[in-house]
């Protein structure tokens, strides 16, 4: 198995035909867009973390006086909004962009320019949302924006307008990406890449896109109503006019609960890639993992009102939503057990990625179990609006999603940069983050059960909350140190890390068959896939002996591994060529042997048509953002100005869309 030993190192400078600012502004390459998503979302992770740090500083001791009540409302609102819409979703999108085409054997996404558009809309939307800090009115209605608190009668300034318009802008980004990825996965799979052979991350990404395209229109409409109420005096959320105070809550949570799975399923997908690699075993129960992902998504649309047990919907509604919520624990539990069985009896390697991944399995379970606790309406009535809930959703989102996404960053960093992250720094990052997260969020279970309400900006001494709050704040300090170490690692290793080679981990899926980072066309030759684990078929056939293959295992692979074409290995199951079982195992972990950078053929030399770079998606995104953003002038009683600006930017948007759509994607060939 000498294939990996000769893995050619890939010089970063030669990856892209050109570099420099202009090439980044005009790029339509899914891998560079992935890198843009990664960098931007990690930046906002720091911003959202800073907001959390101020919150914890305020609450560290009773009667904190760091910030005012108003500022505190802005801080927790922007912390939630930032972490959900500007961090976890786009960080997941970084992996969708990088991995979906690589894992299915495609050369790009279906609509490369639309992909760039999605990113630029996200960037401009996130900037718009945060500009609110500098005009002194950041959103302050919670990430859920309950009416009537967010209607004009109770929130007269621009705070909520920034939130409403910002979310509308960001929604466009997610929806455009959703259509793009669905089309990519349905229509761009390499020959033999049947649905039930797709890598599990791509499966989870596929499911998430359906959640996005079906859930986001609902919040779009809920926000339109709120926007119209605030700008044009409609009566959707006006109680005095007969408006239903629960309409917003229903619409928001019909979006909001699927959103929870939009946030966690990508992390589940990453962990399902990482555990098999570092256990040297195929994923336990692959089909069940796929079906349980679908079931989670399907049931996810039928549980929204468990966020509303306290509003008095009556025993029947409460019971139905309680039961459907508990049902979701079944497919989720199936996943937890399948991950454990994947590791069971495996040859475990505790890399940083693996440690983050195992932590998701362990800690998400804690968050999942507290979730089942408040699926029961009577229990929920005790727990709702207390820190117990805060503990619950931070265990699923930080100890779940973020752990999984950090695992993904450590695992896939070579595919972004060609280099490995430093394992020693990674070890510090992991352990400090692990300790910090648990020290921050575990005591919140107790402060919550002792009755500490959410969203209060200060509390009196003598209620039994002091020690728990102090612990949480110390935990936050440890998380900050961990994050700084981790980010220093990211920053340093992107230039100075060890050269990774094609397949540093001995992984089974297609993305590891090509150089790190991949050339702009990804696959010089589109592979033919004959099983779920094409690389293990080549490198360690014994590992995949029990996996279904084409033609009863006769024809195993037809792919290029590290520049070597491995094709038509004819053999029967259970009779692997190339030595005894485990021959492939001997090479894992040791393929990092940098050889002098070698030049790879360009797309033009190979005759592969590539999309042209284009600035038009950026312009379209800019004008669309400005068009929606200028609606804010209406609130300032400058209706004429708003109309002029909206018409102006709408015209500019239309012009740039026409320019975009009437320009062919590629040169004639």
């Amino acid at each position, binding site marked *: 198995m000498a294939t990996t030993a000769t893995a*050619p190192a890939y010089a970063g400078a030669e990856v892209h035909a050109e570099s420099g600012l202009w090439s980044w502004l005009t790029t339509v390459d899914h891998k560079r867009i992935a890198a843009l998503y990664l960098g931007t979302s990690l930046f906002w992770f720091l911003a959202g973390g800073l907001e959390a740090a101020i919150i914890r500083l305020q609450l560290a001791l009773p009667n904190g006086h760091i910030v005012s009540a108003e500022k505190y409302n802005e801080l927790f609102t922007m912390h939630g909004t930032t972490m959900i819409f500007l961090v976890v979703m786009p960080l997941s999108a970084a992996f969708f962009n990088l991995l979906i085409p690589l894992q299915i054997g495609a050369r790009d996404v*279906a*609509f490369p320019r639309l992909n760039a558009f999605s990113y630029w809309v996200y960037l401009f939307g996130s900037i718009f949302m945060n500009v609110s800090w500098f005009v002194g009115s950041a959103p302050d209605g919670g990430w859920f924006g309950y009416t009537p608190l967010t209607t004009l009668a109770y929130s007269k300034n621009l705070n909520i307008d920034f939130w409403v318009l910002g979310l509308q802008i960001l929604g466009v980004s997610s*929806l455009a990406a*959703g*259509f*793009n990825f*669905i*089309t990519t996965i*349905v*229509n*761009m*799979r*390499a*020959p033999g*890449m049947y649905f039930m052979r797709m890598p599990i991350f791509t499966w989870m990404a596929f499911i998430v896109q359906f959640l996005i*395209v*079906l*859930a*986001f*229109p*609902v919040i*779009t*409409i*809920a926000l*339109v*109503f709120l926007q*119209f109420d605030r700008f*044009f*005096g*409609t*009566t*959707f959320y006006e109680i*005095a*006019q*007969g*408006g*239903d105070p629960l*309409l917003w809550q229903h*619409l928001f949570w019909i979006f909001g609960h699927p959103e929870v799975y939009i946030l966690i399923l990508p992390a589940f997908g990453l962990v399902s890639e990482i555990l098999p690699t570092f256990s040297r075993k195929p994923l336990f129960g692959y089909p069940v993992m796929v079906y349980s992902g679908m079931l989670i998504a399907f049931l996810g649309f039928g549980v929204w009102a468990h966020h509303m047990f306290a509003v008095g919907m009556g025993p029947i509604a409460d019971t139905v939503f309680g039961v459907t919520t508990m049902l979701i624990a079944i497919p989720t539990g199936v996943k937890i057990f399948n991950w454990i069985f994947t590791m069971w009896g495996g040859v475990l390697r505790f890399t940083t990625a693996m440690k983050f991944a195992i932590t998701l399995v362990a800690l998400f379970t804690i968050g999942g179990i507290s979730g089942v606790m408040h699926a029961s309406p009577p229990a929920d009535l005790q727990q709702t609006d207390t820190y117990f809930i805060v503990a619950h959703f931070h265990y699923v989102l930080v100890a779940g999603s973020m752990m999984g996404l950090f695992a993904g960053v450590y695992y896939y960093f070579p595919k972004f940069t060609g280099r490995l992250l430093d394992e020693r720094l990674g070890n510090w990052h992991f352990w400090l983050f692990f300790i910090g997260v648990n020290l921050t969020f575990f005591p919140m279970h107790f402060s919550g059960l002792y009755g500490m309400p959410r969203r209060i900006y200060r509390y009196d001494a003598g209620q039994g909350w002091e020690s728990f709050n102090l612990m949480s704040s110390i935990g936050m300090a440890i998380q900050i140190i961990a994050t700084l170490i981790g980010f220093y690692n990211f920053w340093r290793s992107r230039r100075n890390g060890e050269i990774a080679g094609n397949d540093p981990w001995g992984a089974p899926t297609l993305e590891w068959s090509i150089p790190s980072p991949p050339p702009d066309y990804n696959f*010089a*030759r*589109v592979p033919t896939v004959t099983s779920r684990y094409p690389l293990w078929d080549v490198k360690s056939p014994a590992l995949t002996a029990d996996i279904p293959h084409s033609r009863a295992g006769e024809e195993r692979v037809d792919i*290029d591994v590290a*520049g*070597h*074409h491995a094709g038509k290995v004819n053999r029967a199951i259970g009779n692997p060529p190339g030595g005894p079982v485990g021959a492939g195992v001997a090479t894992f972990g040791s393929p990092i042997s940098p050889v002098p950078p070698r030049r790879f*053929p360009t797309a033009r*030399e*190979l*005759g*592969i*048509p590539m999309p042209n770079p284009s600035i038009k998606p950026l312009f379209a995104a800019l004008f669309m953002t400005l068009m929606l953003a200028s609606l804010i002038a209406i609130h300032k009683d400058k209706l004429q100005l708003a109309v002029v600006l909206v018409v102006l930017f709408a015209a500019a948007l239309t012009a740039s869309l*026409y320019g975009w759509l009437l320009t062919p994607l590629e040169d004639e*060939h």
Partner: protein
Amino acid sequence: MSTSAVAHAHSHAGHPPTTTGLDHRKIAIWAFIGSECMLFASLISTYLIYKGRSKVGPFPHEYWCQTTNATSLDRIAGCPAGSLFKPILNIPVTSQSTFVLLMSSLAMVLALAAVENKDKPGWAGPGWGGRLLESSKLWLLATAILGAGFLCFQAYEFTSFVHEGLTIKTNLFGSSFFTLTGFHGAHVTVGVLWLLTLLAIDIKRGLGPRDTLLVDISALYWHFVDVVWIAIFTLVYLIR
């Protein structure tokens, strides 16, 4: 060995065929339509939830007396002049606009057929009737004009409702009605612009069978917007 990738690549130059054999845009438009279903489902649900919950009139199907706040399906006797509001919805006029929009879908079907069969002159039969059916420009224009006609009806409808005392601010009915039908009208407007763009391309260089997909996806969008209107017409106008 390393050159084998290159050697193979030459035989695989160009785009690999799509997995389903369909164009990407066809898949994407279906995903988009699925998403749009949820958009209109949210709007229509809100309209239905708020039906009959407005505190003041005017109402869609009932007379309303402003001074007594009484409602009735029949004309209210004894209500002071100037205080009586008629039922807002004008079903005969909207039936006409619905007919216009449905006919635009027929024209759209004919436009697609004309583009698909451009390379088979005489496919639609002999005589001027056949020649008429073969003109993609005619049917694209007809679809756009019928769509624009629907929008004119809507503009007339909105204006007359405002004159009769119902604005988007008046009550829950006004807010949910204008938002729902306004969103639909915005979709029709985008569709008309799309059709006019296709018409411009047809005039400039001529649309032929290789452009079928361009017309096909616009047709899918157009028919979808039409189907949504059938739902709105039934649920908002016809059912009391």
